[in-house]
């Protein structure tokens, strides 16, 4: 640029230039806002590899992916973590990832490996499902819901809160659960019945869980769409030690959607080797073991020991709904629009 540059910029450039020369190589990991690891874990990786790892938070999963795609000609990072299977097709179609058949994949169950070209590798997964407030149901003497079918029964009128699939990731996952469960022909009928039965649609997870769910201050509805790991999180983050989770997840066959999170090497990185090392590290035992208590999802590598609070207070969903990334990519927009028409208009 030949324009005069504002003084601020000049100062910034001058301040940063010498530092950039002296520092160790920097590897950048781009991810969403929910990324978390234990203290010291990344330092051990940095030390072993002799580099500095920079974690770049880029909004929610959708916003982060959009940024990665927009910046493809001049990538913001070397590695991207946090694409889930609802966005996998979109990410692969954009062609921003480079294949890396990491050795660590050997320990991962085949159901989780959705990309045969190994551009996106599974790191963790979580089950999106119904959660209910145990105390509420015990007090009213009503049986807690066993699955999606219960939600449309008169007994459960006005009890459910879901998230808008157009603005929320668990909301989209739950919509996909119904598509997988009832099929393209049947899912809208289910939603129409649910609407007639007084379902409440909130904007996002926070709004649903902390605004409408009966466990929240001011909330009135005892059934909410959340994760299989929410009951253990309730125990872990309780005010006082709890022997039993105050909520429970509905995990019966065909009632949950398995959200799998992937990591990938961004095309155009100049640090292919260190970037591969980072992916190996994320599939390695230390990182995998660290996942549950920090990100509240399950490690992808089979046999990774789970923390006690997970073992005691939750399980995996039985036979979660399966949809291929291709069918999700082809149907996502259409399903959301049809859902909006059926539930909101």
């Amino acid at each position, binding site marked *: 640029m030949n324009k005069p540059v504002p003084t601020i910029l*000049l100062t910034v450039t001058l301040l940063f230039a010498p530092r950039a020369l002296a520092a160790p190589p920097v590897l950048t990991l781009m991810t969403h806002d929910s990324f978390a690891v234990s203290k010291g874990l990344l330092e051990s990786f940095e030390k072993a590899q002799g580099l500095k790892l920079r974690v770049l938070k880029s909004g929610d999963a959708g916003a*982060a992916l959009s940024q990665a795609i927009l910046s493809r000609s001049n990538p913001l990072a070397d590695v991207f973590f946090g694409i889930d299977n609802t966005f996998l097709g979109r990410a692969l179609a954009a062609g921003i990832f480079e294949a890396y058949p990491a050795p660590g994949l050997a320990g991962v169950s085949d159901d989780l490996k959705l990309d045969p070209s190994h551009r996106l590798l599974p790191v963790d997964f979580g089950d999106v499902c119904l959660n209910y407030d145990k105390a509420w149901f015990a007090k009213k003497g009503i049986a807690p819901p066993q699955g999606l079918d219960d939600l449309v029964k008169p007994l459960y009128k006005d009890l459910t809160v879901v998230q808008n699939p157009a*603005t929320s990731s668990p909301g989209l996952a739950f919509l996909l659960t119904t598509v997988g469960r009832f099929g393209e022909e049947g899912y809208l009928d289910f939603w129409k019945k649910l609407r007639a039965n007084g379902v409440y649609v909130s904007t996002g997870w926070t709004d649903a869980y902390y605004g409408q769910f009966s466990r929240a201050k001011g909330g009135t509805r005892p059934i909410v769409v959340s994760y299989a790991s929410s009951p253990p999180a309730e125990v872990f983050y309780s005010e006082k030690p709890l022997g039993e989770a105050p909520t429970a997840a509905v995990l019966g066959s065909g009632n949950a959607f398995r959200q799998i999170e992937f990591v990938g090497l961004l095309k155009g990185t100049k640090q292919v080797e260190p970037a591969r090392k980072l992916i190996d590290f994320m599939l390695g035992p230390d990182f995998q073991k660290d996942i549950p208590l920090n990100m509240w999802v399950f490690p992808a590598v089979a046999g990774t020991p789970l923390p006690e609070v997970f073992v005691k207070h939750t399980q995996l969903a039985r036979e979660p709904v399966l949809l291929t990334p291709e069918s999700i990519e082809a149907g996502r927009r259409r399903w959301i629009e049809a859902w909006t028409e059926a539930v909101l208009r």
Partner: protein
Amino acid sequence: MRSRLRYLLLLPPLVFLGVFYFYPLVSIFGQVFSTAAQKEAGGLGKLLGTGYLARIMWFTTWQAALSTLLTLVLALPGAYVFARYDFRGKGLIQSLTAVPFVLPTVVTAAAFKSLLGRGGLLNAGLMKLLHLEGPVINLDHTVWFFLLAHVFYNYTVVLRLVGGFWARLPRDLAPAARLLGASGPQAFFRITLPLLRPAILAASLLVFTFCFTSFGVVLLLGGPRLATLEVEIYRQAVHLFDLPAAAALSLVQILFTFGLMAVYTWFERHTSVSLMPEPARPALRPAGQGRHRLVVGASSAFLALLLGAPLAALFLGSILTEDGLSFVYYAGLWENRAQSILYVAPITALVNSLAFALAATLIALALGWLSAAFLAGPRTRTGSLLDPLFMLPLSTSAVTLGFGFIIALDEPPLNLRTSWILPSLAHALVAFPFVIRSLLPAWRGIPASLREAAAVLGASPFRIWKEVDWPILSRALAVGGVFAFAISLGEFGATVFVARPQTPTLPLAIFRFLSQPGAMNYGQAMAMSCLLMAATAAGFIFLERLRPARGSF
């Protein structure tokens, strides 16, 4: 000669806008539309073809207009009281009215829901009192709920801009009109209101623009059925990946607000009146005696209800635990249960927030001052074009601008995409229109005769500036500074959509808590919000003390 030099004032603001606003926007529009043209632009045609766009535009416009009107009607009496009366705690209350401005929308929404939601405090209380089965107040997912939130956010804009201007109006005009036989309302509508017009217009424009681009509160309080243009842009861009549609909607938004601002600028230029300002420390009416006491009392009570109740609900949420009142949530802030690196010590977050806010405030004040200095000068065509242009960043979709940063600021010397300065720059972009709007009515209102008189009496140009201009402008500058500081502390604007390294701020820490289940997480989010409010109030009180001419507004 002097008028030529005046153009030099414009250089920094124009370069700033060019580099950090127009360049990113042009880049993103260019990239998105060129790729869209290659593929079939089917979605785009559908978007513009059906009544869909018209519906959203209509809704966005009327809700913003209604919000502005409501805010004006509710805040003007307050502005009068603050301009004309002196009472105990005035400075403090005035500082506190700007606190809502910094609250992240998630927190505001949580406060409103815990107060007025179906199971909220008010409904619970009323149900108990009147032995009712169901809730009385059903505001949830209605327009009224977020209109109320808009008033909550913007009350302070009207209070400060209009109140500050009002305090400087000669106070013998209305009594003179009364003496000549005008009734009270006549004197107000024929004399006071026309004189206040520049400030009222400036405040209305800011409030309207703010509400026009409203996003978070509409999503959270209005529910999924109501969408403003900004909400739709976000939906299209982030969740449907339809960037062409998002960009087209952003363009519509920009053009619409530019038109609106051009009309406003024209209007403002033709209505500004210069009047002999009141001295810096005017004799304000003490609120001691009967009727006056009532006026001040009523207005304070109203303020307490409108702004105080939601804030009190937040505070209650931060101390009301399973065991009754306790500070465990605050204590919890200093504890890292998961040993996570994401754990943010409250002090770190606070220091980061304050540093970003300070940088943003300084940039916004400097640029706003220069721009206002130019715009306040003789009427030129350049001025009428630039004035609305300077307002544009306030009305531009945050998602679009954020994405623009990513593709535009990616090469040296502008490789700022992940720099620590980017958040401050982005905040300053939104804040500097506020500084201009705070300064301009005051600047234009300085009578030339005052300067000439000083010159005749032998004052040097510097002395004139120091004795005439500065006392008037410093008050307006402090108001602009408060807004800039608040905008940055609340992380308003494009930064939400910009990648950033580990520099956690208070709002980011609050989002973090609110994204995980568990009683401690919610409680700590509320506690952190209260810390944010306290930091803000302290910052405002500090800024208010900085300005030399204290005692008035």
